């Protein structure tokens, strides 16, 4: 079995192989085969991850760490870096989540993207996305993690702007790229400092040094805060979460991939991976916990005022990432990864369910167009889809319930573990706990609102009235994800605790009945409140949203995402662009080049007799070269005299 571990780089290589095959394949069938090739590559990667997992499982818990060094990357002593993989419970758990969810999304995309003229490009990007994420997860040092980190950013840029003919999509991709680079600015500084502090990028020696207290607390705080800046970009936390709601401009499977398995989980993984480092910096941990909890509540609040069904899910992702970040910040790494895993399944389910709804509405609209402007994402123009799309309805409902945290679905167990971990600590963590409980209420509220608006009552548009269930290639992945959304929470349920035993042997998951009861009651209260407001009987016809009259101006603010984009625009984006234009249009031509021209004029006026020579005519230039050469010859002869 150990020989197998040496081959674990194949997990990353398979998606790259898929990319390569699609890149060089030619001929008529290549567009139709692209999805199949890419899906098989993803599945092979999952299979390999499974085998590596089995090989690791067969070892005793204390021997479940294998480092595979592939090759030397660059050597200028003392700067050394290897391309190497770290196969341990955490990285393999992540790899399994990424490849399993990724594979299912690949398969779903075959149906969703069928007929798209650029389908081959789509699957190439999707494969690259998967490979980049796997590189990030499996790397054995911070530098290679950063390579994966940036490549993931590139893929999201390419895929969010995949339908680039629409300027908004291209803009959204660019926004994601630039906002992530702001975070990466901090991350890179952290990386520089990290290397000069520890003299290596490798996790093993760094964590060992950290555990032996070989690093000052101040330095550790600075490093971790800088790394966390990167996390706020990648994992969409305050203040850099603004790219994620626009990231749903990409095709829906991409949204599912970004929100569930790849990209946004990278930041949580980083904190979990480097937790020995973060534990040296209590200040950073406090900041992370509070930022995470505040993000959870803030995003949940905004989600209430959204009408775009994917945008609701986007804000719910930000909110749920807040839970994970808060937990990871508080040192509850197991709980964070557990929630990351369960969230991957039910969020993928919700996005693919949303994709099924959008697909159905677009199809219906094509056959039954009505006069009003059509937006397949607008929940105000849906309603009554439960009867017309039963599979989508039931699976989406399961996903929503899992997200809301209803027992015994997946989200219940993992969210509970986070709350339990935060609840027992005091001080600032207690504040974070309070924020997260409030966010749990809002989560249940907005998911109920969403389900009610999409599926309950009567159709509010011709398209919704004529929608049909999606084809099997789309509904089967939905059912698989629904199955996992129900069942996956049990892997770390009390008494079983398989995930904890895997990640942190000797620390079984804690279960506090009173905590579980509280969380369930909060969720039920959220559902009840939302249903009271949004049930069809309570919702008069012609009212856009029953909450608007109740909240008035505040609801408008919520629909405008609390004006954060506008604020950033005024504070950062426009001054930034103005500065660029000022440099390009004023400083360069009139300032610097103006000085150059002034010097040229000065020289010219000092030697006005010679000025006519620099008229730009080649013949005159040639003459001056000749004269210069003659003078040079005389000069040399004089030297030699």
């Amino acid at each position, binding site marked *: 079995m150990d020989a197998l571990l040496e081959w674990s780089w194949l997990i990353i290589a398979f998606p790259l192989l898929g990319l390569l095959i699609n890149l060089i394949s030619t001929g008529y069938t290549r567009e139709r085969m692209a999805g199949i090739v890419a899906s098989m590559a993803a599945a092979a990667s999952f299979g390999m991850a499974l085998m590596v997992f089995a090989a690791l499982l067969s070892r005793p818990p204390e021997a479940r760490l294998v480092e595979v060094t592939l090759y030397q990357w660059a050597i200028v002593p003392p*700067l050394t870096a290897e391309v190497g993989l770290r196969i341990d419970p955490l990285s393999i758990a992540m790899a399994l989540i990424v490849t399993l969810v990724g594979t299912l999304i690949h398969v779903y995309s075959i149906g969703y993207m069928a007929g798209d003229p650029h389908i081959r490009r789509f699957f190439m990007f999707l494969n690259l996305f998967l490979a980049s994420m796997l590189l990030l997860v499996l790397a054995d040092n911070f530098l290679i993690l950063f390579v994966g980190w940036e490549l993931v950013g590139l893929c999201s840029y390419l895929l969010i702007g995949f339908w*680039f003919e*629409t300027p908004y999509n*291209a803009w959204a991709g660019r926004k994601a790229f630039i906002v992530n680079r702001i975070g990466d600015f901090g991350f890179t500084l952290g990386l*520089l400092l990290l290397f000069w502090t520890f003299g290596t990028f490798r996790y093993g020696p760094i964590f060992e040094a950290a555990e032996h207290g070989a690093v000052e607390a101040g330095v550790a705080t600075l490093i971790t805060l800088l790394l966390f800046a990167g996390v706020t970009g990648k994992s969409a936390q305050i203040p850099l979460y603004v790219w994620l709601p626009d990231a749903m401009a990409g095709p829906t499977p991409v949204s599912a991939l970004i929100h569930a398995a790849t990209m946004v989980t990278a930041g949580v993984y980083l904190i979990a991976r480097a937790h020995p480092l973060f534990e040296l910096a209590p200040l950073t941990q406090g900041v992370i916990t509070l930022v995470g909890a505040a993000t959870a509540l803030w995003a949940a609040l905004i989600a209430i005022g959204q009408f775009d069904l994917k945008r609701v899910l986007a804000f719910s992702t930000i909110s749920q990432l807040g839970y994970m970040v808060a937990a990871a910040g508080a040192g509850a790494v197991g709980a964070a990864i557990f929630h990351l895993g369960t969230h991957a399944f039910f969020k993928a389910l919700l996005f693919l369910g949303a994709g099924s709804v959008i697909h159905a509405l677009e199809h219906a609209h094509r056959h039954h167009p009505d006069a009003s402007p059509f937006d397949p994402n607008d929940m105000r123009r849906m309603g009554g889809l439960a009867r017309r799309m039963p599979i989508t309805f039931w699976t989406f409902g399961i996903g929503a319930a899992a997200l809301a945290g209803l027992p015994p679905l997946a989200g219940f167990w993992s969210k509970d573990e986070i709350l339990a971990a935060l609840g027992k600590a005091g001080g600032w963590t207690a504040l974070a706990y309070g924020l997260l409980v409030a966010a749990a209420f809002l989560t249940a509220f907005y998911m109920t609102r969403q389900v009610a608006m999409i599926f309950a009552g009567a159709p509010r548009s011709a398209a919704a009235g004529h929608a049909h269930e999606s084809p099997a290639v789309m509904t089967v992945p939905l059912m698989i994800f629904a199955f996992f959304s129900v069942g996956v929470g049990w892997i770390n349920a009390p008494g079983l605790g398989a995930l904890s035993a895997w990640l942190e042997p000797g620390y079984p998951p804690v279960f506090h009945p009173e905590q579980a009861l509280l969380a369930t009651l909060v969720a039920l209260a959220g559902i009840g409140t939302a249903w009271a407001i949004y049930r069809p009987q309570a919702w008069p016809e012609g009212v856009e949203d029953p909450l608007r009259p109740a909240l008035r101006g505040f609801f408008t603010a919520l629909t405008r995402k609390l004006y954060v984009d506008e604020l950033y625009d005024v504070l950062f984006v426009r001054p930034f662009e103005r500065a660029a*234009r000022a440099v390009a249009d004023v400083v360069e031509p009139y300032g610097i080049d103006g000085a150059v021209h002034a010097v*040229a004029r000065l020289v010219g006026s000092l030697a006005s007799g010679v000025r006519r020579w620099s008229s730009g005519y080649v013949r005159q230039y040639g003459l001056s070269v000749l004269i210069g050469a003659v003078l040079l010859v005389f000069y040399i002869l004089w030297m030699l005299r």
Partner: protein
Amino acid sequence: MTLFGYPIPILTLITFTPLLGAGIIALTPRDSVRLHRGLALFFSLIPLVLSAWLWLNLDLDQPGFQFVERAVWFPQVNANYYLGVDGLSVMLIFLTALLTPLGVLVSFNITEDPRTYFALFLALETGILGVFVSLDLLLFFLFWELGLVPMYFLINNWGAPERRHYAALKFILYTMAGSLGLLLGIQLIWAALGGMQGGTFDLLEVSRRWPALQGTLAGVPMEVVKAIVFWAFVIAFAIKVPVWPFHTWLPDAHTEAPTAGSMILAGILLKLGAYGFLRIVFPLFPTESTRFAIALALLATAAIVFGAYAALGQRDFKRLVAYSSVNHMGFVVLGIAVAGYALGNPAVRDYALIAVNGAALQLFAHGLSSAAMFALVGVVYDRTHTRDLEAYGGLWTRMPIYGGILIYCAMASVGLPGLAGFVAEYMVVQGSWPVFTTLTAIAMLGLLITGAFITKAIQKVLHGPLNPRWARLPEISAREILAVAPLMVFMLLTGLWPAWIVPTLNATLARLFG
């Protein structure tokens, strides 16, 4: 390597084969265009093959210069035809020999007097290669000037119609202003070292004698003479790099030059300045270099930030790419500044070695990415006859392969990990961080702005709805792909496995610090 018992003068062969080709092309009939192209390609491929051989046969463990050729050239002033290479110059020779045939390939669509064009283009290569092989200061200067003249004519006669005369004149006057000081400095060194009695242009001998030289020259204290020569050299090389704020000739020359001319300008000519710092300024002026290193680092940071800002504010595609060179060469200067600082501060030599290796690698990486970007700008310019970013839009629809290649090269230019630019820029900042911490942190802001301007370019050119003006635009041709593909291969190779090239550079640069 010997042939029939005689050593083969490999460096002479590499350097003068293009000039021979230029001469042969000049003798061919004026209208046999295919012959001109074929000859140009053939004579530019020979140095490529030879320089690859040269690299493979370079002995990294051997200190000093290799493949040395020496012949008496100008005995009266003790100037010699003295050639030799080490790791740094071999890398740059290879880069030159790689970019020239690709530039020839790009230039196949030149219709206006292709005979003269290709002859000049090959003569240009000889001028550049000569700089990299020269170990004699007078010879160095000769080749340095030799490269300017063909480039002037390439811009002036084959450039974009609107402002080519202005750009060509600005290019030649600005650089000549710099090289005037270079000539003066070289002569002062010769005179100070004894003039007719023991004066020398031999770079190795000068490096040994000059830094410790005391006394006076024509009544002027040696300290003053050294300061004059130092600044004369620094300004000459700073204009060439260009170091901010001596850069304003660059956007004009790069933008107005024909595509292949821009490739060579950005890909290699800028590297001459950095090469001058490493090869001449540092060995000759260790004390002065240390003293002014902080100023140089400051200017490097200004170049990185303001260059990126200026690129972001451009409306002209080619000008945007040109300004990105100011930004990327800023990282080279930063690495060089760290090395200069370390000359007098042995404590930071470990850091400086990393930074200066990064700077040298950045010469290679930027040579690849800037040449590729200019070639790709040329591809759309040839089809649309505009460089206005607002005039494009949605070209990816018409040119799917072109779009993929453009994004790939743009990402290499922006320093995406996995491609060459990242390794180089990362090594520079990693090395400069402990030495100039604040400046490095500010320079990293440039990373943010580069991301903004390169995605702006992609958005304006490729994204959005297809502008109906370009509804019949043809896809990138096989010839054009062939001109970029080798660069893409080297970008990926260097990004994934920089160890193929870094040891060559390190072997040379490590000796910079004795």
